[in-house]
């Protein structure tokens, strides 16, 4: 069993572009759920409109990439406003299911034959981000340190992605420690109290929804640009589950929670995969026990188990405060 392979796989995954994308989406979710208390289960919908904003603008309408980005941002704001209208008045659990439903509705419509002329329907859209790679200043080669190597393409994508993540983190840090942040954290605790003090709860929730949604859409755009491909079925509720997992792993309501959570989540996911396959290859596990096609399933089962154990033994997440969590538990 080659530990250096397992380790390098895990690390590459943890700092790779996908981890950055999920971190960004989770930062948006952190604003929604961690700070404002909005149990938004439709974060994936923001990613979807962001991704398709870019993809459709460029592929379908032949616009330049930066216009596509603007359109992606614009559609996420629009979605937030539309989504907020019916859902922000709801109590937590209702909001959760209503938003998850909204996400699914959106996915189903984007993939339907009605939308095919614009979204490519089930075929998705491809090849719309060549501009992004054209402006890469990194010469073609592979780069790396220690056990980890990236192609120049990945390195460019991941540098931009992590830069955006850091900017977003700084933005959130500034915001939540400001009086504005105090208001949204108060809304998380008790809306009526905030209302009675003369703050427009609805407006604040909407601001939070829009802002977090915009971050989510940026994540979607980054994912789309990285893959040069969008497909509606990749934006199913499971993505949101993963985002929550990331958020809680890192610590909800903590500025760096999403980053830590995402790195950990993806590193773990790949670690299990890699370790299992290495163990089988090295003969530690007989193929009779786990046959090749079953590795994926066993990996996810292990991830599920690992997730449970983490939550059981470190319920507040890596960065969370146990005291705060106990208060929550009542």
């Amino acid at each position, binding site marked *: 069993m080659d530990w250096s*392979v397992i380790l*390098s*796989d895990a690390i*590459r*995954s943890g700092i*790779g572009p*996908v981890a950055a*994308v*999920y971190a960004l989406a989770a930062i948006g979710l952190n604003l929604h759920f961690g700070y404002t208390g909005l149990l938004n289960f439709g974060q994936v919908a923001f990613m979807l409109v962001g991704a398709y904003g870019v993809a459709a603008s460029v592929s379908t309408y032949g616009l330049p990439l930066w216009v596509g980005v603007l359109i992606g941002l614009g559609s996420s704001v629009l979605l937030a406003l539309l989504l907020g209208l019916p859902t922000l008045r709801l109590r937590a659990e209702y909001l959760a299911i209503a938003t998850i439903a909204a996400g699914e509705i959106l996915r*189903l419509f984007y*993939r*339907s*034959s009605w939308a095919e002329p614009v979204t490519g*329907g*089930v*075929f*998705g859209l*491809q*090849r719309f981000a060549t501009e992004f790679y054209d402006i890469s200043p990194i010469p*073609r*080669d*592979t780069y790396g340190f220690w056990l980890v*190597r990236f*192609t*120049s*393409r*990945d390195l460019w994508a991941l540098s931009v992605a992590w830069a955006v993540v850091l900017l977003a983190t700084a933005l959130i840090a500034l915001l939540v420690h400001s009086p504005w942040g105090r208001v949204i954290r108060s809304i998380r605790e008790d809306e009526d109290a905030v209302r009675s003090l003369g703050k427009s709860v609805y407006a604040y929730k909407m601001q939070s929804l829009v802002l977090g949604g915009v971050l989510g859409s940026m994540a979607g755009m980054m*994912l789309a640009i*990285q*893959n*040069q*491909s969008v*497909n509606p*079925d*990749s934006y*199913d509720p*499971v*993505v949101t589950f*993963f985002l929550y997992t990331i958020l809680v792993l890192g610590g909800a309501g903590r500025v760096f929670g999403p980053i830590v959570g995402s790195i950990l989540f*993806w590193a773990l*996911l*790949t670690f299990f*995969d*890699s370790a299992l*396959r290495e163990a089988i*290859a090295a003969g530690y596990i007989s193929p009779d026990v786990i*046959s*090749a*096609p*079953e*590795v*994926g*399933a066993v*990996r*996810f089962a292990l991830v599920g188990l690992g997730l449970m154990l983490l939550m059981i033994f470190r319920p507040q997440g890596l960065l969370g405060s146990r005291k705060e969590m106990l208060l929550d538990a009542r």
Partner: protein
Amino acid sequence: SSGDGDGGEGGGDGGGGTLKLGYVLPETGQLAYLGPPQIQAAKFAVSNINKAGGVLGQDIPELTGSDEGGQEAVAVQSADRVLSADVDAVIGAAASGMSLAIVDNITGSGVVQCSGSNTAPTFTDYEDGGFYFRTAPSDSLQGPVLSKVIREDGHNRVAMIARADDYGRGLMQSTKQELESAGARVVLDETYDPEATNFQQLVQQVRNSNPDAVAVIAFEEGTQILQSMIESGVGPRQVGVYGADGLRSEELATLVSPDDPAVINGMKGTAPASAENQQFVSQLKQFAPDLTELQFAPQVYDCVNTIALAAEQANSTDPADFAPEMNGVTKDGEKCTSFQQCKNLIDQGSNIDYDGVSGPLDFIEQGEPGQATIEVYTYDQTGTLKTVRTEVSKGSG
């Protein structure tokens, strides 16, 4: 895929070394059932190649596998993992959408990608630097045959239902076009959400459209749809029922009705030929006794063989060297049908034309079969799968 390989970055390990292969195939997620046959077929191919002495005298090492998982993010991470193991070629992904998500990364790294089940037409003209190939025939090859079979049986009012995904919609569209240009009326062309839990309304629509033939373009969920159709009175006993490759299965009858396999008596369908090679099927089943389904297994098997032969032909395991040979080994030359046989020919210096277990292949310039052998199958009184005939399709022109 067009054009020559431009060398890429860092793929492979130079001319001499071993040929390393990996795969990104679904082990979990929506299409998990497409995984096992493909994975086993790839392993089977490798084992046969190694039995024949390996590629350039070196055994192909254990495949570096990874799960496509039905999620772009998971697939991308998996592809990264496989690539970082310095593979020369990647088999997969199974779903066209997932392939599209990873194709840039793989081909951009100068590694060959070959899928046995991507049927979406998009790939034909995809800019992949000449590194992407597929052995699955594009939908435009199967549709005409399916349409022809339906017309031959004298049906004019055809209801079509298909999975709402790139496979289903693609095949449905190409079949529908053919049907209509052949003068039949397509009275219903409905797609359904493959994740749906319930197909009653779909079947009601079929019934309401009053067809004389129904084409069902489905994967595994087709069983469920057939059951509903039979119960609603639009089964093979009442109308012509046609399937595509997704419904071609030895066990379809027992899956639909364990007690009364005759319920699908008379159902017909088309699929890229594979059963033609009975030997392959029985050997594969011997190799992997747990396999129940063989969907796309022959195509994947051929992917692996083609890659190995291209490397032999190029006398190099560097993808930049052997990718340009991929098309050549499948056409225009002395026919051969197994790795061993073809390798011998190459060693003798002949130009080979590998005809795989999934068909003659004959890759066109874009790195995919320009024609396909399509099998017309049917189920008999006892629910047994029977081949009616095979025919070569070159598409609808």
